[in-house]
Structure formats: structure tokens, C-alpha cells
């Protein structure tokens, strides 16, 4: 097909279950899908690869009936279909498992599975359906307590509920949007076993990912999207190398190595001792965390989402009270002090949620960059803010950090994710922080922006800042960090200095370092 790499047909070709032809989808200012063709065969795992913003999720949301394409045709099992809602797609046997789980936290597993179905018609008869769901789950080897409320479940369990929800609806075509992003390596193994089992039973799976090694491991065939266009369509996974895929994905060779200078760490900047804290639900989230970060080193914190990373970052930065323990910044006790106290003592914070926490959407870039400086001169003159100084400061940051904005008066909400993150980073770094707590600093950004952000972090390390990097991207952690702690259920399982991914993986699933060592000996 017009010069793209095409799957060579076998002699006994399995039936095509989904065919999308010439799909076009526009969003304001973006062409998310540009004449995309896509073919899924029965019984295969078809990986859809592409970097963030390449249009993978858009394409699959169209297939799942959530968006309507501006142009193009979709055939399911040979029949032309027009989905006007997800209900239509589900009827056609297509079920999508979204990256952010579509589960109602306050409802039970059973209720979530029954949501949107026709049976039971009016009265719920929950005890009867608890039984039914439990039996159904058993059949697929997915153990789950149907009476449990979603918020009580781990991320892995929630994913199981999502899969069950689709299977219960009789879906035989499953779309999985970045299913491994929230799982530990061992949980990923378990998921892959489940997926292979489902395929062997005749189901077909579309696996969206931007992680090359996973795609190579699980997929039968691979399609690649780049900037809304198909750059490879249905290539057998065995016949292609990682480098080739990366080039198709990004359109250029990707450096897999970052230029990190050797340097000896300095004094201890952050010292956390036996920290305990509760999460939003009042349950223990941190159970005795101790760690240190020295000047001029990046210390990574690895862990599966929801094991206390969020709470740890919040307690260190003063956004959450701890119930026990001590935090020292440059030897000074900052435990349970107000946020402004640690800001004045050189704490920078790149929050996990850049739109809801890190910036103020309707305020200008200027207002956003002075967020931590408006109290001190030169921007403050007594009780008054010197607007000239503020604009100068903003101009200077925009120029230094190469932030793409029309003017410094533009409201922050009109910025792209990458530029927004640069605004936050510029603001935090410009204070020459002694300690920088960076939470998921590159999540959801495209490759170019990721590189830029990572470089900035390394520059800060060279400048002697202590950096605590909290991330769920293991590759990023390993390539940036000098040391890595692993957190599991609010406890530090151990510390790795050589970036051994197997050891990290074991600790992420709850095996403490001592046990791993004993196992080795």
C-alpha cells in the first residue's frame, strides 16, 4: 500500500476482524489522524506503537465508538459500521480498556461490571449477581472479590475488573491502551499470560504502547503511528529490530543514552527518617520511609503507582502532614512546616499534575512564573508587586528555557504539555533549589520534550542540586539516577546503585532487598 511496509500474507490467512480505512480526525489545531488505515486479524495481538500525541489513542477511541471520525470507514467482521456511541462498539464485540481505568471508585466490582448493561432490568439483586460475577471471573482465571469497592483494590486488580467488564459484555476484540504503564514487571508478566490465553481462545487484541521492548515481547504484528500518520502497518514483530521501530516511531534515530557526567555527591541535603503518613482515605500510605539525597546526585524512587510515592512527595514538600517521623532539609527540621517555609529554604517541586497543581490555567505566564517569588524583592516591593520586574523575569525565563509562547500575557491553559512543563521547570530551577523533588516530570510528553526536560535535570545535578526523582518509567529512572530506592506499600524495599532491573522489579512487587540477597547466596 503506497510504499508503506505491508504484512506479507500467509497461505492460510486468518479472517480480518477489524478494518479501518482512511480515518481522519481533527482536533482544534491538530490533525490527530491523517488517512489512517488499520487491519486486525482474528487471534492476534496487534501492537499499535507511537510516541505520545501520535494519535494512537484517538484512533482507538474512534474504534471504541467514543469519537466519531471526520472521514473514513470502519468494517467489523466484514460489515461496514457507524458507531455513534460506545454502546454500538460494544455490541459489535469491541471493548476498550482505557489507560485511566473507567471504573466508578465508590461502586462495587459487580456494579461496575453491570453498569450500562440490559440485565438485570430494574432491581439490582446484587447478591445473586455477586455470585454470577465470581463464577464468571473464575472461568477466566481472574480472581476478584465482586463485593469489594473499586477504591479498595490495587491497580492490578482494577485492571482485572476492566478486562472482566469487557469479557462479560462478550467482547472478542479487546483494545488495551497502555495497559502496562501502571504495573510492576512481574504483574506485566501475569498480564501477558492472560492476554496470550485470551488470544488462544480466539479473541483478538490491540495493544497500544510506546514501550518498544514490551511490543517486541508480546505482539504478533506491529503498526506504527507518527504524527497522525501510519509509518508501518502490520509488520511481523519477529522481522523487525528495535532500532527500526524507534526510527519509524520518531522519524529519526533516537539516542538511548543520556550524557551523564561522573561526579561525587556532596553533603546530605534531604534526610527522611521513619516517615509515616496517611492517604486521602485515612489509610496508612507511608509506613516508616527513610532515605537520603545528597547534593549533586539524582536519587530515583521506583515503585508501582499507588505505593506511597504521591504521599511521600506531598509530605516532603509540605502539602501533606505526616503522622510520625522527621524530614531534614540541609539539617534543618522541616517536618509538618507550611509549604512556604520549605520554599524559602530552597525546596523546588515539580508536581505530578502539571495542569491542576503546577500551574494556574487562566492566569498569565507572568503570573505563573512568579508563583514562588512574589513575596520577595525585587518582584515584591513591600505589599506591592512590581509588574515591570515580574514581566522582565518572565521574559528572561521564556528566552532562557526556550518556552514557546505567543506573549507572556498568554494564559497558561493555552500552552502545550511540553511547554507547560518547561514553565514549571524554569520557575523551580530559577530559584536555584538546594533540593528538587520531581514527580513524573516527563509523563505524557513527546520524545523531544522528554529529552529537553531530562537534560535540564542533569544540568541541575551538575550545578549541585539534590534531586529526588519519582517516576514510574523504569528506563528513565535507570538512565538518570545515581541511586534508586524502591517503594512498596509505603515501605522502602531497598536501594540499587547498579540499575539492575530484575532486582528493582522484585522489590517493586514486595520482595525486600535482604531476601533477594539471600536468594542469590
Amino acid at each position, binding site marked *: 500500500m503506497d510504499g508503506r511496509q505491508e504484512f506479507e500474507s500467509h497461505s492460510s490467512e486468518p479472517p480480518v476482524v477489524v478494518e479501518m480505512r482512511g480515518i481522519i480526525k481533527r*482536533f482544534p489545531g491538530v490533525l490527530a489522524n491523517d488517512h489512517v488505515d488499520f487491519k486486525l486479524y482474528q487471534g492476534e495481538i496487534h501492537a499499535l506503537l507511537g510516541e505520545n500525541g501520535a494519535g494512537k*489513542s484517538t484512533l482507538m*477511541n474512534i474504534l*471504541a*465508538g*467514543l*469519537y466519531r471520525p471526520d472521514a473514513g470507514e470502519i468494517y467489523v467482521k466484514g460489515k461496514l459500521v457507524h458507531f455513534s*456511541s*460506545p*454502546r*454500538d462498539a*460494544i455490541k459489535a464485540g469491541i471493548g*476498550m480498556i*482505557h489507560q*485511566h481505568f*473507567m*471504573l*466508578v*471508585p*465508590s*461502586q462495587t466490582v459487580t*456494579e*461496575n461490571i*453491570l*453498569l*450500562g*448493561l440490559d440485565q*438485570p*432490568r*430494574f*432491581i*439490582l439483586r*446484587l447478591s445473586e449477581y455477586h455470585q454470577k460475577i465470581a463464577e464468571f471471573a473464575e472461568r477466566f482465571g481472574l480472581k476478584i472479590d465482586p463485593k469489594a469497592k473499586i477504591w479498595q483494590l490495587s491497580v492490578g486488580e482494577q485492571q482485572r475488573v476492566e478486562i472482566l*467488564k469487557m469479557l462479560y459484555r462478550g467482547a472478542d476484540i479487546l483494545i488495551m491502551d497502555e495497559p502496562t504503564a501502571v504495573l510492576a514487571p512481574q504483574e506485566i508478566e501475569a498480564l501477558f499470560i492472560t492476554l496470550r490465553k485470551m488470544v488462544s481462545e480466539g479473541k483478538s487484541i490491540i495493544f497500544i504502547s510506546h514501550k518498544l521492548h514490551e511490543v517486541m515481547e508480546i505482539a504478533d504484528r506491529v503498526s506504527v503511528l507518527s504524527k497522525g500518520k501510519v509509518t508501518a502497518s502490520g509488520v511481523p514483530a519477529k522481522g523487525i529490530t528495535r532500532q527500526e521501530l524507534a526510527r519509524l516511531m520518531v522519524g529519526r534515530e533516537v539516542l538511548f543514552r543520556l550524557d551523564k557526567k561522573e561526579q561525587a555527591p556532596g553533603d546530605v541535603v534531604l534526610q527522611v527518617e521513619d516517615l509515616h503518613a496517611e492517604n*486521602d*482515605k*485515612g489509610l496508612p500510605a507511608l509506613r516508616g520511609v527513610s532515605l537520603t539525597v545528597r547534593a549533586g546526585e539524582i536519587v530515583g524512587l521506583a515503585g508501582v503507582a499507588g505505593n506511597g510515592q504521591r504521599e511521600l512527595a506531598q509530605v516532603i514538600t509540605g502539602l501533606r502532614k505526616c503522622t510520625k517521623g522527621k524530614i531534614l532539609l540541609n539539617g534543618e527540621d522541616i517536618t509538618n512546616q507550611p509549604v512556604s517555609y520549605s520554599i524559602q529554604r530552597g525546596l523546588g517541586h515539580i508536581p505530578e499534575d502539571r495542569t491542576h497543581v503546577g500551574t494556574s490555567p487562566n492566569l498569565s505566564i507572568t503570573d505563573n512564573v512568579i508563583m514562588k517569588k512574589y513575596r520577595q524583592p525585587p518582584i515584591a516591593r513591600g505589599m506591592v508587586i512590581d509588574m515591570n520586574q515580574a514581566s522582565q523575569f518572565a521574559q528572561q525565563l521564556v528566552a532562557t528555557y526556550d518556552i514557546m509562547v505567543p506573549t507572556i500575557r498568554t494564559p497558561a491553559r493555552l500552552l502545550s504539555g511540553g511547554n507547560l512543563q518547561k514553565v514549571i521547570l524554569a520557575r523551580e530551577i530559577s530559584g536555584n533549589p538546594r533540593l528538587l523533588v520531581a514527580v513524573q516530570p516527563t509523563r*505524557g510528553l513527546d520524545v523531544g520534550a522528554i529529552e529537553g526536560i531530562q537534560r535540564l535535570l542533569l544540568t541541575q545535578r551538575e550545578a549541585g542540586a539534590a534531586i529526588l526523582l519519582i517516576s514510574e518509567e523504569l528506563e528513565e529512572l535507570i538512565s538518570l539516577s545515581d541511586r534508586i530506592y524502591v517503594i512498596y506499600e509505603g515501605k522502602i524495599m531497598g536501594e540499587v546503585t547498579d540499575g539492575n532491573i530484575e532486582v528493582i522489579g522484585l522489590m517493586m512487587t514486595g520482595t525486600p532487598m535482604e531476601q533477594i540477597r539471600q536468594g542469590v547466596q
Partner: protein
Amino acid sequence: MDPIIILQAGVASGTVLLFATIGEIFAERSGVLNLGVEGMMLLGAMSAFSITVKTGNPWLGLLVAMLAGGLISQIHAFISIHLQADQVVSGLALGFLATGISLVLGEGLSKAGTVSLMPSFSIPVLSQIPIVGPIFFTRHSVLTYFGYLLIPAAWYYINHTRPGMNLRAIGEFPAAADTLGINIYRLRYFYVFLGGVMAGLAGATISLAIAPGWFSEMTTAGQGWIAVGLVIFAQWDPIRAAFGSYTFGALRRLILDIQGPTTILGLRNPFYYNPYWGFFLQMLPYAFTIIVLVIGSREAIRKRLGAPAALGTPYIRGERGL
């Protein structure tokens, strides 16, 4: 100052709050905050009374009141659901509008005199039960009895039926419901409509049963706002709403009755000898609402309960990065 009579009358006047509160619970459970309750009640009270004056048929008045409340609520529904405006301001606007319309159309209605009201009766066997009988089952309006049926029905509907489950889902996490093919917009319109119908019913209950007549804005006298406050106290649960509504009803009645006797518990009754102190009694329901809010809010913090998670936010499908 007979406690039985105060409680009996409290149940009757609490029925107004009960309807308005349960209606608002449905709207808020679906994710739409409607602050126009007071206005919708006023519109209901006005249209019920006006139609009854014209036709002599209170049932017709009741029906029109419910329809009027439901229809005008759809303005708020459209602005907050489709146009995605701020629900607080939109609800306030609806309140102003409904109040204005009621005043315009209710012009001169206060001089209409007496009309036929909703029927009242005692329930044969139940009214014989000591204490409970005279309070709950004696000489009540048919609307009060309807209120008794509504409480368990609303509770059962929300917690144990399929549409109730859908209702909870669209208020907590509309995106999840959307991916399963539940039509969020349609349901939200419906529950805002239901809230409006109930507010209209609450208004009609005032003008056709509890305090017959039309007294401009003093017909409702802030009860719509008290209802919005009770929703928070009730933690979006109809049974707690009933408890709150009847307590408030009894309080209103107590304030009226306490000014009557010359002595209370053998002591000189200060409110009888200083009738102007009645102004401080008048403050009580409003002060009590604030106290009840403090109780409700502290409890919510302690138990980490909260409003439906999506309350007050418009649902927009297809936001990038969904």
C-alpha cells in the same frame, strides 16, 4: 404548646423541605448543582395557587406547579450541561429568573382569598397508635402521606435499582459511564427536571396545604435555600434528608407556638411578654441551618465522605488525553 401538636405540624411543614431536598439530592447525585430551588419553589407555589384560584381544582394546580418547576429547571440544565457554564452562577440566575416570573405572574394573587385545598384525612388504624398515630397519621394532607412513601422509594431507587446505579455512576465518574454507553447528558437533563418537579411540588405543598395563599417572596421565605443546605447535611441520602426536614418543620412550628402561652414549664414566658423577641426566634431556622451545615461538613471531613465527585463539573467527552 402541646408537643404532639408541634410534632404533628412539624411533620406537615417539614414535607415542604422533604420534597425540595429529595429533588435536589437527585439533581446533585447526577452531578448537577442547582441553586435555583428557592425560585423554582416560588414558581410552583404561585402556579399551583393561581391555577387553583382559576379552576377550583387543586389537583390541576399541583400538576401545573410540578410541570412549571420541571420546565424552568431545564434552562439551568441547558446552560450547565450543554453550554458548560459555571453551575453556581447558572443556578443563581435560574433562581432570579424564576422569582421574577413568579412575582410578575403572581401580581394581585395575594388578594385572591380562599381556595379549595389538597384533601386532608386520618389513616384509620394507624392513627390509633399512641404518640406515633397523632403525630404521623392524623389529619394530614394527602401530600404528607405521599412524602412518607417517597422516602423509602427514593432510597431504594438510588441504592438498589439499575437506573439508581446509573445515577450514582454519572455523578461520580461520568467518563466511565460514558464508555459503557450510558447517555450522560440525557440522564442529567432528566434528573435536573426531576429536581425541578419536586421543587414545584414543594412550592405547591406550601400554597395548597401547609400555609395556603400567595405572599410573594415570603411564601417560601428561604426554605429552598434551607433545602440546599439540608442536602449537604443529609450526605445525599434521602433517609437523612427526611430526618432533617421533619426536624426543621418541627422547629418552625415550635417558633410559632412558643409565643402563645404565658408560662413555659412554670416560668414566665419571655416571648409572650416581649413579643419583639420573636425576631430572635425568627432567626432560629436560619441559624440552625448554619449549625446543621457545620455538623454535616465536619462529619464529611471525619468520615472522608463527600459530595458526588463530579458535582458541579460539566461532562465533556473527547477532551484530549481521555
